[in-house]
């Protein structure tokens, strides 16, 4: 609470908010959530393809972050640290739903048919959310982390626990599907 007295929340840097939140300052954590909720929810919405589920997972991830905030070594590492929590929360939810991430099912995602969908002809700029909705859960996860969050294949392997070959395949196939959708537009 001593930290809170010295902290003007609206003007505080993210690092200062994180340090205060690590000292169990709920107001500082609330401000941190305000600043980061857009990014966190957008990330999970891209991965989930379901806004309500994504928001539930974002809430779960923020509460886990509050519980584990003391484990965060430096405030600068917060985005990567929180992203890992969000991805783990997403994966746990999908595992509860018995989603399969490691199999690459050719039959369920025929690339040839993508260009003929009405969504594909929507416009020259990618409607990202609609396009991502056409990918499998695993493809969406890997494409979002690779292209959206700028993670390397190795970092995705480290974060998701999927084999490297599977990650590469999901990124490649997901990207190829999105490209075909754009070409058709």
């Amino acid at each position: 609470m001593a930290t809170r007295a010295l902290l003007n929340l609206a003007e505080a840097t993210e690092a200062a908010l994180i340090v205060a939140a690590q000292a169990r300052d709920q107001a500082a954590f609330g401000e941190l959530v305000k600043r980061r909720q857009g990014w966190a929810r957008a990330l999970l919405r891209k991965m989930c393809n379901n806004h309500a589920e994504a928001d539930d997972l974002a809430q779960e991830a923020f509460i886990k972050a509050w519980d584990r905030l003391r484990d965060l070594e430096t405030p600068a590492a917060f985005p990567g640290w929180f992203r890992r929590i969000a991805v783990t929360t997403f994966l746990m939810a999908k595992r509860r739903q018995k989603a399969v991430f490691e199999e690459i099912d050719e039959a369920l995602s025929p690339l040839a048919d993508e260009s003929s969908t009405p969504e594909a002809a929507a416009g020259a700029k990618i409607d990202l959310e609609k396009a991502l909705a056409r990918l499998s859960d695993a493809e969406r996860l890997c494409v979002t982390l690779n292209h959206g969050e700028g993670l390397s294949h190795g970092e995705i392997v480290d974060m998701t626990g999927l084999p490297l070959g599977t990650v590469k395949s999901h990124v490649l196939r997901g990207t190829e599907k999105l490209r075909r959708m754009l070409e058709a537009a």
Partner: protein
Amino acid sequence: MNDFNALLKRSFAEADEPVDDGFSVKIAHAVAQREAGAQMRSRLYVAAMGVAGLAVFYAAYALASALAPQVLASAGLEIAQAYGALASGPSVAGQGVMHSLAAGLTPLLFITAAMAGGAVAYRAAQQG
């Protein structure tokens, strides 16, 4: 493909982020409830440890009350015997001292073991 990757990255970067439609307030409520629950659990834990400490203290006190006269008597006897042994012949008296020391130390060891056991149980409860 590289152009497309660049377009894809740009599309991700430019994608709209959801506005805060009460989401952060929901989190704040959830965190506050969680903290209140944690504080309650912490208070209950402290109270339970206090009760357990009192129980251990009472048990130790009762044990000491029961054994103290015997221990004091043994100690007095030891001192008397040791004094007597030192005053008389070395070989036979020395054996007597060892025997009576062993007998007198038994309750002391028993109490020490009980206290050590209590301390271990307390530490295990704290770690758990």
